[in-house]
């Protein structure tokens, strides 16, 4: 397997852009990433595009305005992990020697679905009796609170932290901090969650240029190396299972730590899939940043805030930066690339050398989640 580096990264501010065509949401990120890499469009040999709700040929539609079709375009759908899945496939294609320079695009425009909760998975029996995504996470939260004594006030601190960091990120959908009182008093969505315990729906696109290691020297930009990119799917369990443990994430994390030789203690900055407040806490534990049941202490100690031992979601995370589902994995990677290059502005983690992104989701009955993608980067 060949070494692979990321040499270009770009994204637009996540938000709600109902007036913008899907293609016009996408091409600026593509153009930005190629220019960032100091390349031209003809240098790109293939494109991997992740989108969950973009419909058919999402990649071709975003590339057409740039006159960039005519090369292989692989469209990937894996719910929240679509963009990260596209990244993993692109990385593997270069590592295996198929291509030298590949572009990854993550894109979704959720404003075209209207507002409110996302549509449920068709033919899913749990959805047919009233399960929604917020309710699924809310049930995890209630069980976690019951088993580990977490309070709703503590849970709300996750959202306060997210919005505090999102306020430092010009690419975030929400750039205004919130108080604990505001989080606690927000209108109910799925008890114990109020509106501010849930990520917003939004529109966004993020793109990356990947390059074979031996060609990196031709580029002027400082490369960020892909140490490993892990993808797995949830195991189908027919009986009882503990929903306070993020099974798919813990298993994926174990695999990538083995594969890369990186320990959780080595991670300087991480972007994790905080679609709901409880998720960030569960993922601290599943990713090995702390022991089971101790996540809130890690957060309250400041360890996962800017200046802490293991800063998590400096972008604001999904709760503040926003969650254009299929774009999220690529947007997380853009943030970590900027962090490792020292380009993250007011939210920069000083001296960050090892970064991790974690993306998981897709509600499907009997599985912890549909998909989980974890990527580790090194300077």
């Amino acid at each position, binding site marked *: 397997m060949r070494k692979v580096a990321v040499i270009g990264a770009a994204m637009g501010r996540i938000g709600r852009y109902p007036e913008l065509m899907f293609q016009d949401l996408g091409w600026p990120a593509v153009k930005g990433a190629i220019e960032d890499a100091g390349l031209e469009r003809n240098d790109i040999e293939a494109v991997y595009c992740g989108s969950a709700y973009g419909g058919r040929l999402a990649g071709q539609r975003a590339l057409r305005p740039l006159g960039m079709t005519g090369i292989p375009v692989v469209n990937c759908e894996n719910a929240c992990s679509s963009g990260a899945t596209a990244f993993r496939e692109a990385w593997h294609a270069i590592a295996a020697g198929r291509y030298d320079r590949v572009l990854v695009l993550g894109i979704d425009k959720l404003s075209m679905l209207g507002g409110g909760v996302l549509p449920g998975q068709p033919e899913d*029996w749990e959805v047919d*009796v*009233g399960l*929604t995504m*917020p*309710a699924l996470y809310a*049930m995890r939260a209630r069980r976690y609170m019951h088993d580990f004594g977490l309070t709703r006030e503590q849970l709300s601190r996750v959202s306060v932290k997210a919005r505090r960091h999102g306020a430092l990120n010009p690419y975030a959908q929400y750039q205004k901090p919130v108080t604990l009182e505001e989080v606690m008093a927000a209108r109910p969505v799925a008890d*114990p969650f109020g509106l501010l315990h849930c990520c917003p729906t939004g529109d966004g696109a993020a793109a990356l240029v990947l390059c074979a290691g031996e060609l990196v020297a031709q580029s002027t930009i400082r490369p960020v190396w892909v140490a490993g990119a892990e993808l797995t799917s949830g195991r189908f369990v*027919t009986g009882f299972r503990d929903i306070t443990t993020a099974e798919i994430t813990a298993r994926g994390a174990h695999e990538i730590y083995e594969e890369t030789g990186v320990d959780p203690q080595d991670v300087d900055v991480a972007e994790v899939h905080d679609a709901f407040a409880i998720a960030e806490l569960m993922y601290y534990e599943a990713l090995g940043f702390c022991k089971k049941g101790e996540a809130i202490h890690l957060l309250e100690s400041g360890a996962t805030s800017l200046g802490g031992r293991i800063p998590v979601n400096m972008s604001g995370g999904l709760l503040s930066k926003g969650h254009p589902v299929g774009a999220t994995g690529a947007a997380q990677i853009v943030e970590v690339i900027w962090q490792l290059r020292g380009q993250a502005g007011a939210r920069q983690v000083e001296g960050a050398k090892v970064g991790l992104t974690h993306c998981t989701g897709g509600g499907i009955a009997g599985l912890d989640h549909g998909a989980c993608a974890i990527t580790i980067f090194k300077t």
Partner: protein
Amino acid sequence: MSISASEPRYALAGTIGFEEAQEPRLMGGQCVQCGVKVFPKPKICSVCWGVEQREAPLATRGKLYSFSVVHAARKGWPSPYAIAYVDLEDGVRICAPLEADLAHLPALDTQVELVVGTLRTDADGGAVLSHRFKPLQEAR
């Protein structure tokens, strides 16, 4: 005990049967080859790939594993409503509407029992029924 086929207005077709005394039962599948019980009844056993599945009435009682009161519902769903995971006595976990007083919510691990009731109304105003669970009444 004879189990009759379900009526068409159930949210999940074929999942509710009735005993002779008209007590409802939630119907799952049990693999003839390896015995694993699954809800709803599958066409193939995910454990042993056995394709022969018998209709199996599931336990009517279980424990409330977790629940949420949904305020932001999908279009066409009356809210708020409570949705739960119930762990049945025979080892099957069921996602189900929870029939409870939303002002006095039950504790987790409370014993619950099966009832059948209205889930929502469909586009032409008809009631759509489904399995539901409610906290077991203490003996008075």
